[in-house]
């Protein structure tokens, strides 16, 4: 037990050895390298922060830019996607992803989503699961307050106010809970970026299986299953198949 505590303490100490200020300094150095066009050094500096086990949206975004300037398209896409995961509504990262995706070989027509689903998904992403969690808690509290008010208030007006507050906040808390679950589902869906220049997508998780189609580097795929060293992937157009996990980097 004692060992364990010491171990945890060391662990935390080791990974949080640097303070926010120190990270900021490294970050600024890296930005300086980027401005000077020294992309390799910039990359190393950004990576240094990452190696400390911390992450931030800006870090991923800048790393994506650095990789793009270096000509590493799949890595750029990977870091932009990681940045997007932390801040799903950022316009800059979306723009850069669009630009960088113009450099990849595969053009996949995504299946059109119904406008309502798209709207639902984007609202879920707008606050994030923790945002929805806190909103839900707030609304639950308001609901309880409303109920209490309804039962305790002496005058008719206050009773009514309590009643409607409770009703409305119950509705909104249900919505925010479901949006929270949607956001959780989205964030728990695994995606990956193809890193090998050309990948054969097979019909089964074995070398001898039939090749169904070929993907190229930089393509974002959804990972739906894992078996041994194989991943079952799904493209945005709905096609699925198995690929070796060596060829894909998880977002």
């Amino acid at each position, binding site marked *: 037990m004692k060992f364990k505590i010491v171990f945890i303490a060391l662990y935390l100490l080791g*990974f*949080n050895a640097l303070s*926010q200020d120190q*990270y*900021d300094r490294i*970050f*600024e150095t890296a*930005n300086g390298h*980027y401005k000077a066009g020294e992309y390799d050094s910039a990359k190393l500096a950004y990576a240094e*922060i990452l190696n400390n*086990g*911390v*992450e*931030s*949206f*800006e*870090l991923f*975004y*800048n790393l*994506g*830019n*650095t990789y*793009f300037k270096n000509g590493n398209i799949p890595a750029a896409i990977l870091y932009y996607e990681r940045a997007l995961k932390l801040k799903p509504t950022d316009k*800059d990262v979306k*723009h*850069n992803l669009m*630009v*960088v995706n*113009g450099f990849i070989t595969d053009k996949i027509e995504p299946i059109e989503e119904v406008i309502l689903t798209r709207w639902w998904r984007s609202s879920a992403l707008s606050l994030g*699961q*923790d945002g*929805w*969690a*806190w909103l*839900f*808690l707030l609304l*639950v*509290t308001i*609901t*309880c*307050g409303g*109920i*209490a008010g309804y*039962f*305790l208030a002496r005058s008719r007006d206050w009773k009514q106010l309590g009643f409607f507050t409770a009703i409305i906040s119950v509705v909104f808390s249900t919505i925010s809970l479901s949006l*929270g*679950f949607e*956001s*959780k589902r989205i*964030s728990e869906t695994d995606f990956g970026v193809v890193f090998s220049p050309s990948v054969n997508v097979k019909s089964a998780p074995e070398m001898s299986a039939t090749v169904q189609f070929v993907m190229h580097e930089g393509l974002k795929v959804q990972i739906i299953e894992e078996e041994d060293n194989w991943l079952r992937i799904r493209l945005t157009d709905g096609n699925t198949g198995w690929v070796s996990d060596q060829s894909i980097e998880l977002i």
Partner: protein
Amino acid sequence: MRLLLTILFVSLIYVGWSQTFTAKCSHETVGVGERVKIVYTIKGGDGKKFVQPTFTGFRLLGGPNTSSNMQWVNGVHSSSKSFSFILLAEEIGTHTIAPAKIKTKDKVIDSDPIVITVNKSKQTKQNTSQGNTKKTKQDGSVDLSSDLFMKLFVDKRKTYVGQQITATYKLYLHSQVVNYSHNRPVFNGFYAQEIKIDPNAEIKTEVINGKQFRVATMKKVVLTPQKSGVIEIPPLEMELIVRMEGKRRRSGWGTFPTYKDVKVDVASNVEKIDVSPLPLDNQPNDFAGAVGSFSIKANTDLEKVNVNEAINLLFRLEGKGNIELISEPLLDFPQDFEHYDPKVKQNVSITASGTKGYKTFEYVLIPRYAGDFEIPAFTMSYFDPISATYKRLKTEPIQISVSKNGADEQRGEMAYVAPKKEDVQIIGKDIRYIKSTSGAFKTKNEPFFDSAGFYALGALPLASLGLFMFMAKGIRRRNLDVASTKSRRARAMAKKHLKVAKGSINGSDQAFYEEIYKALFGYLSDKLNIPVSELSKDSILSHLNSKGASETLSTDLIKVLDECEMARFAPMAARGKSEMLSSSESIIERIEDEI
């Protein structure tokens, strides 16, 4: 007379009785694929039920076809009925066709069996007996290979892809042809265009080996090779009915030639064409597959126009070769000219030396702005198979001056839809710049949503609500019972009044007694739950009794109340103020104890 009739009748019966049932076939030996007719005839009587045999080795094409025949010759009646079948020989060998059966009035008659020999088909036989002329075969067909043959002529045996060749099929014949038909050859690897000819109209005579032949051109095709390599031109196969002269027949009026129609199959030879691919080196960029010899010309009907007036540009391609396969030229019109898809006309004739003619593309151009414009020169390359080189044609550029005719332009501009506004063209796409300020660096943490803490926090307001409600319910219930609350609070209230009275013990008598009175009566009203309006000594006594208070308590209470009342209105100090206070207090204590 009677005797005669009897004889006649008997003879009729006899005739009726003498029935024969025979079987005949048209050929006893046939080739595979040929037809045989078999006729079963019953004479002298009507067959009731005919049973046909099975024709093994043959295919039944038709039948039974029934025909009846009746005759009266010199008073003798004869009748016959026949059943005929058309069969197609299918298997080689000797086949015996079992007898057919027919049922007459009282018996069943069998015909004779038929034996037919089927051998190989005629054509193969012809090949084995080559060299013999006019040899009459067993089956009656005749070998006429030296009298009747076909030839395929081509104008060249070496060509380029796209260079046309002409194939001609000619029929050489010495005999008279009654009827003919031919197949349609399929020209694989060629684009074939047939030249329409009438074989009867183009008959010439030719002498070959001292023998005069009539030559009929059966088919003429212009072929454009579509691929390189050795390509075969297939033969034309014909089936002819030839009228042959047979033995002369003598008759009373002299000798007559006899004729016989014979069916003959002929096929032409096959030609192999060596098609070379077009040379790849020096192939011009604008080469689009034209092979032959061409000339081009481009001109407009007007050179000076006003704005919004139409100009017709005519592009004309003329020559010999695969002109039909040449597509519309790509002309670069000035930006300010509106142009439409061209109207294509072609006039191509297929001749023995290939296709020739011209093709025109007519463009309508409408200048939208004034100025001097140039319709640039148009180039076209083709392959000349004769010199085996590529040649390039070029038209002259055309100068067009568009003048601004004030009024016209005004009108035109109004009629003309305003030029489309263009979207801002994004010339170079690049990523956006890096973020200069760092955000908060965080360690990857587990999401709060759906965690135990989240649910605990969610349960907290609900639990507190529950607790709160539970407590509120108790308070509420007690509040609802006003009487008991009042009685519970009666003593406190009384004490409050007594305290005030005690405070004003040195003050005016009026105020002091007033407080004492309030304390006592208020207490009793609350405690006994008597409304103030009904409060009197009697009602107090009866309530006390009903609550089970002792008699002494009641009398003592009345005494205290009386004293208090008296003191209020006639302030005489029968007892001291403090005594009054203590007796009031003690009486309240006593009531509290008893009730």
